[in-house]
Every structure is written in structure tokens, then in C-alpha cells.
């Protein structure tokens, strides 16, 4: 034992001696505040930032450089006041939330970053809706929120339809479906900003590529697992592994910041009756509705659609009546991947792109699917619309940051009263 310890220590010592090499440089001493200003993906140069102590003593005033970065070193740790001069921002930019003062704390030997999120001036007006019209403000607001709820609900429905179809045919509760949504948005971003394509062809490319990746995913991964006889709960936990894996791969390639597409970022709203909407949202909703209708008709009318429903009902019986179950599942994965990607692009268009965007909506997708009834394609549609509407309309009464709480609470209450969901069948709940 003693000899082993000595030998091990000597080995480690030798290893350390060999590998330490030149003394490792300490990270640069940093005690202060810094940040980076970007507007629509571009760095903001020349924005004035004044740093003062908590008591109001000015410390330093700096301007952001060509990379949008600024940096102020301070003597003492403590609380500081950082003021961004709105007049020094680009003409069409403003600070999100309107507050141009931050009070961060500097810790000993550490640099704190200070965030100022910038947005286009039109964007805020678009969010606030119109307040000046003649109808009573409550109903105007309710109409506006209903519209926004439908917008969100349709996006959730696209993603939920794919999730529900995959669940119905394979029994897999796919926790990585949110990452398929992110994948679509990031692929479109890569074609759009990386290769300089206009957003519309970029989106088409992204959807096609995502469909191919969906096919590949089933061909090379999930299909193989099914052949090995992996249980459904094992597959569910594997999908969590896939979700973590993909999410951090996105983080490595895409980075942790938020981005937006090169086109259609800030559109002024147009007034339609009591609501104001950006034209891009109307077009997006039209496309979403069209895709949902096409997939629905395909499920009801085409041979493949009927086969898919047969597989969902009873895979063994479907196989024995001559349906190629694996082939059907592969088509479902292709379609599911493609429409999840479309949902991601639409989500990126109406909000922003971030590597966690899919993860953030995953629970809402689940809520939509469960509310409608697990495994029923049309239930997923209805459930998602309900979730989307509920989330937006509930902000009439609850603070916007808690809007998802209401939707999730409704999910739990519906499960108490009607566990099979709105359109589900009793036998499925087990």
C-alpha cells in the first residue's frame, strides 16, 4: 500500500514536472465593469457610458469601440451606477424597457458585465399596441392579445404536431424536440446571415435540410434503438441526453448571445380593426395555417397518412396488414423534423434567436400536446392553440413574466379533470 502511494505520488510529481512547463500566466487582473452593445446583430460604436459611484461621484465616462465593447476599471469594489446616454445611440435604436441606468456590483478582483439590450424604435410601439383608438382599452387590448395568442399558438402547433406524430407512431416522448425547433432557426440563420441568402430561400433550405436530418436521425439513431428493443422510458431518457448534447453543440457554434435574421427584423405595424400587427406576422400565420391544413389533409386523405394513423393505433396490426411500419415512421420523422424547423424559423422571426429558444418553448409544446391528448394529431393542434391563446390573453390579469405559469397550471388542472386531454381517448392513459 505504502509503496503504491509513493509510486503514485512520484508518478504524479513527474507528470506535473514534465507538463507544467513555463509558468502559467495568471488571467489579466480585472476589477471593474464592462459590456458590449449590439443592435440588430451589429456592434454599436461611439455610445457614451458614464460610470459613477453609488453616491453619484463620477468615475469615468467612456465610449464603446468599433466592436461595441466598453470597459471601466475601478479602484474599490462596491455598487456603481452605469448610465447609457440614449442620445449617443444610433437614430433608430432605443434601450429595451426604457431604463438607461444600471446599478451593478463590482466584486474584488472581478469584472462584472453590464447589459443594455437595444431594440428598434418601432418594436416597442408594435408591442404596446395602439392605445389611442376609440374602443374601450380593455377590449382593444384583449383583441390584440388574442391575435398574439393565435400567432404563438400556431407556432406551438407546428412543433406539437411533429412531436405528437412521433409519439403516436413510436411511443417516444421526445425531449429533444425543442432542439429540433432551435435547429431550424439556427440553420435558417446560417443560410441567411452566413451565406447571405434572403430569408425566404434560406428558410426553404433550412426546412429541407432539417427534414433530411430528421430522416437521418431516425435512420441512424432512433430506428437502430427500436431494432435493439430499447424500452420507451429508456428512449425518453436517451432523448434528454440528445437534447443536452444538441443544446451545447448549438452553444459552441452559435454562441450565447441573441441574434435576429437579416431581413424583416423591425417592421412597423399596420392597423387592422382594433389590432396592430407587423405584416411579417400575418404572412407567417398564413404559412403556418397552410402547412397545418396540408399536413392534416395528408393525414386524413393520403395512403401514407392513413398508414401513419394505423401505425399509431396498433403497430403490430398495421405491420400484419402489409404496412411498412419502419417506412412510415421514417416519413413521420422527416415531416416532423421539417415542420419543427419551420416552427423554429417562425419563432425566430417573431422573437429572437437564442440557443435555448427551443428548450424554452418545449414545455409549452408538451402542454399543448398533453392538453389535446397525447398521440392525437388534431388534439395537438387544438391543445396548442388553447395554450398559445391562454398564455397571451392571461397577461390581461397576470404579469407577463408569469404568463407561462398560468398555462402550465391549466395543464395540471385539465389532467386532474380529464386525464386523456381534450381529444384523447380514455384507453390511452393507462
Amino acid at each position, binding site marked *: 500500500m505504502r509503496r503504491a502511494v509513493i509510486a503514485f*505520488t*512520484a508518478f*504524479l*510529481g513527474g507528470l506535473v514536472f514534465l507538463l507544467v512547463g513555463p509558468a502559467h500566466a495568471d488571467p489579466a487582473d480585472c476589477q471593474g465593469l464592462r459590456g458590449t452593445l449590439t443592435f440588430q446583430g451589429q456592434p454599436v460604436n461611439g455610445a457614451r457610458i458614464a460610470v459613477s459611484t453609488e453616491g453619484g461621484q463620477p468615475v469615468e465616462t467612456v465610449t464603446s469601440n468599433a466592436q461595441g465593447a466598453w470597459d471601466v476599471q475601478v479602484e474599490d469594489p462596491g455598487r456603481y451606477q452605469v448610465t447609457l446616454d440614449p442620445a449617443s445611440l444610433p437614430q433608430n435604436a432605443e434601450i429595451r424597457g426604457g431604463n438607461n441606468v444600471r446599478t451593478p456590483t463590482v466584486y474584488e478582483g472581478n469584472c462584472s458585465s453590464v447589459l443594455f439590450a437595444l431594440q428598434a424604435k418601432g418594436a416597442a410601439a408594435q408591442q404596446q399596441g395602439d392605445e389611442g383608438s376609440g374602443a374601450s382599452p380593455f377590449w382593444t387590448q384583449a383583441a390584440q392579445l388574442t391575435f398574439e395568442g393565435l400567432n404563438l399558438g400556431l407556432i406551438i402547433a407546428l412543433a406539437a404536431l411533429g412531436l405528437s406524430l412521433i409519439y403516436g407512431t413510436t411511443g417516444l416522448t421526445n425531449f429533444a424536440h425543442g432542439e429540433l425547433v432551435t435547429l431550424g432557426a439556427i440553420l435558417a440563420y446560417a443560410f441567411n446571415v452566413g451565406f447571405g441568402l434572403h430569408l425566404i430561400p434560406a428558410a426553404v433550405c433550412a426546412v429541407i435540410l432539417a427534414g433530411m436530418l430528421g430522416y437521418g436521425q431516425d435512420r441512424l439513431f432512433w430506428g437502430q434503438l427500436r431494432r435493439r428493443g430499447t424500452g*420507451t422510458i429508456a428512449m425518453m*431518457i436517451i432523448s434528454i441526453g440528445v437534447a443536452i448534447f444538441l443544446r451545447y453543440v448549438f452553444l*459552441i457554434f452559435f454562441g450565447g448571445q441573441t441574434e435576429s435574421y437579416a431581413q424583416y427584423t423591425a417592421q412597423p405595424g399596420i392597423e387592422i380593426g382594433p389590432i396592430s400587427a407587423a405584416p411579417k406576422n400575418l404572412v407567417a400565420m398564413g404559412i403556418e395555417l397552410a402547412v397545418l391544413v396540408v399536413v392534416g389533409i395528408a393525414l386524413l386523405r393520403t395512403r401514407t397518412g392513413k398508414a401513419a394513423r394505423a401505425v399509431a393505433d396498433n403497430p403490430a396490426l398495421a405491420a400484419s396488414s402489409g404496412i411498412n411500419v419502419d417506412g412510415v415512421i421514417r416519413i413521420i420523422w422527416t415531416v416532423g423534423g421539417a415542420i419543427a424547423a419551420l416552427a423554429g424559423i417562425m419563432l425566430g422571426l417573431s422573437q429572437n434567436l437564442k440557443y435555448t429558444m427551443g428548450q424554452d418553448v418545449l*414545455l409549452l409544446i408538451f402542454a399543448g400536446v398533453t392538453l389535446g391528448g397525447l398521440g392525437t394529431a388534431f388534439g395537438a393542434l387544438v391543445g396548442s392553440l388553447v395554450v398559445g391563446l391562454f398564455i397571451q390573453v392571461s397577461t390581461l390579469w397576470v404579469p407577463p413574466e408569469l404568463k407561462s*405559469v398560468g398555462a402550465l397550471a391549466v395543464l*395540471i388542472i385539465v389532467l386532474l379533470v380529464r386525464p386523456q386531454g381534450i381529444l384523447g381517448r380514455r384507453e390511452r392513459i393507462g
Partner: protein
Amino acid sequence: MDWITIFSTTIKSAVGVETVLYALAAIGINIHFGYTGLLNFGQAAFMAVAGYGLAVTVTVIGLPFWVGIAVGLVAAAILALLMGIPTLHLRADYLAIVTIAVAEIIRLLFRSVAFKDIFGGSDGQRGFSGGFQALNPFPEGEYGFNLGPIPIFFAHWQLWVMVVGWLLIALCCFIVFLLMKSPWGRVLKAIREDEDAVRSLGKNVFSYKMQSLVLGGVIGCLGGFIYGLAYGSVQPDVFGTETTFYLYTMVILGGAARVLGPVVGSMIFWVLLVLLNGTLSEAVAAGVITFIDTSQAGALRYVFVGLGLILLLVFRPQGIFGDKREIAIDAR
């Protein structure tokens, strides 16, 4: 490359605070998932209500430390009842989705501006561990030894948290060992294997599942206390869904339905994660690896966590100690 620091932090992580708190929460998951077959994906919520129960009782209401611990334990038990009532009648995947939803609701409420006066918003609460550190029997200083050239030292306050934590782990493992040998534990395992068979023997399956959920939740909530006491603060985003997923990785790595599985799983998970992180970030800083930067190196280790979870379930679902026949992964 500073190998001494890498080895020092890696060896310390095998017994460190993070390992302790995750091991406790993972023991709770093991009772739910390993023994009873319940897919509770909301374990982070139990840690959160315990940590916040302690924090709010001490800082906002101003009651002593022991009352805070009691509030946290009661909150965890109530949460288990609330979570169980709508879901325990349902199939495994419904339970998974609802428990995630509950955990997310709790996290959003804790970080909301509306309750900032109570829960402190996204900054969380701090300054409630004084009562615990006042009980610290270790005088101020650094404790430890040198393993050859590698220093392994813990500050007195860390050591105190670790001693309490490992005693709790030993106690919980002992309780789990005794319970799972008892008739009660055999009913739990039978529920995992075939719920209908147990029901046909006249057992109240719902009640057993609920007891399992409460017991695992209360043990899991000890992890939340350890987090709060070790770092002197709680933040809502620490108790996110990913925390629960890492706990599952640990339980499966060590071996589900084994008394020591989650503890060993937590130790291995953190040793590997810290070693990977230290090596990668040092390699990037020293210019050995040039194609990624430091923040990407931080993300890369979680890519490996995801990959590890996939490979583990595909090739060795029973983990290190487990028995393949005892893993509840082949549900209906």
C-alpha cells in the same frame, strides 16, 4: 498547463460540496425512479422549496435557522403531495411532463418580479447561513493535507458543510437500505415491476407511490439545504430542469435501485466534469487547443454529459452497480 491545480480541484470535487448536494438529491431520485419506477422530473423543485423555505424564513421573517429547516422540510412534503395527487394515477410519461411543469412553475414564481420582496427575484436570497456556521465546531483555518505535490485543503466553513452533508448521506443510505429490505420496500419494487399485480394483491398502489414520492422528495430537499448553506445564497435558476436531468445521469451512472448507486454516480459525475473542465480550459488558456475559446470549452463538457447519458443508456443502462433486470426502463 497547471496540472497541480487541475488535480487538486478534481480530487477535491470527489468529496466536495457539489458532490454532496447532488448525491442527496440523487438518493431521492433513486427512491422515485430506481425503486418505485416513478419518473419524477421535478426533483429540482424539491431542492428549490427547501432552499427557499430556509432562506425566506431566516432573512424575510427573521426566525432562527432551525425553524427554517423545518419550514423547508414541510414545504417539500407538501410539494410532493401536490405533485402526486393529479399525476400518480397516470402513466409514466404524463408524470414526467407534469413534474417538469410543476418544477418550472415554482422556478418562475421564485424569480418573478411580483414576488421580489419575498423571494428576491432572479438574484435570489442571501445571508441566511449564519445560524448554521455559528454551530461550526472547526476553528477558522484551512484543513487538509498534501498528496505529494498536490494540496488538498478545505476552508473551515466548507469542511463543516461537508461533514454534515456526508453524515446526512450516510444516514439516508442507511434508511434506504433498511426500508428497501422491509416489506414496504418490496411493495415499492413490485409496483415498479407490475402495478396491476400489486393492486390485485389488495395493496393501495396510489398510497405507496405517494409515500415514495414524499420520502424521495424530502431526502432530495436536503440537497437544497446543503446548496443554500454552502454558498450562503439561493438563486432560482440553479434549480432548473437541467439540474434534474444531471441527477438522472448520476443515478443511472452509479446504478439505479442500488443503495450506493447515486452517491458513487455523483462522485464520478463531478470528478469527470471538473477534470474535463480544468483540462479543457487550461488547454485553451495555454494555447494547446486553439480551435475553441474558454466559454466554448465550458459548453463542450456538457456536450460530453449529453453524449455520456446517451451511451450509458444504450450500452449499459444498469450503470456501474445496477442489475439490468431491476431497471424500470421498459414501461408499457
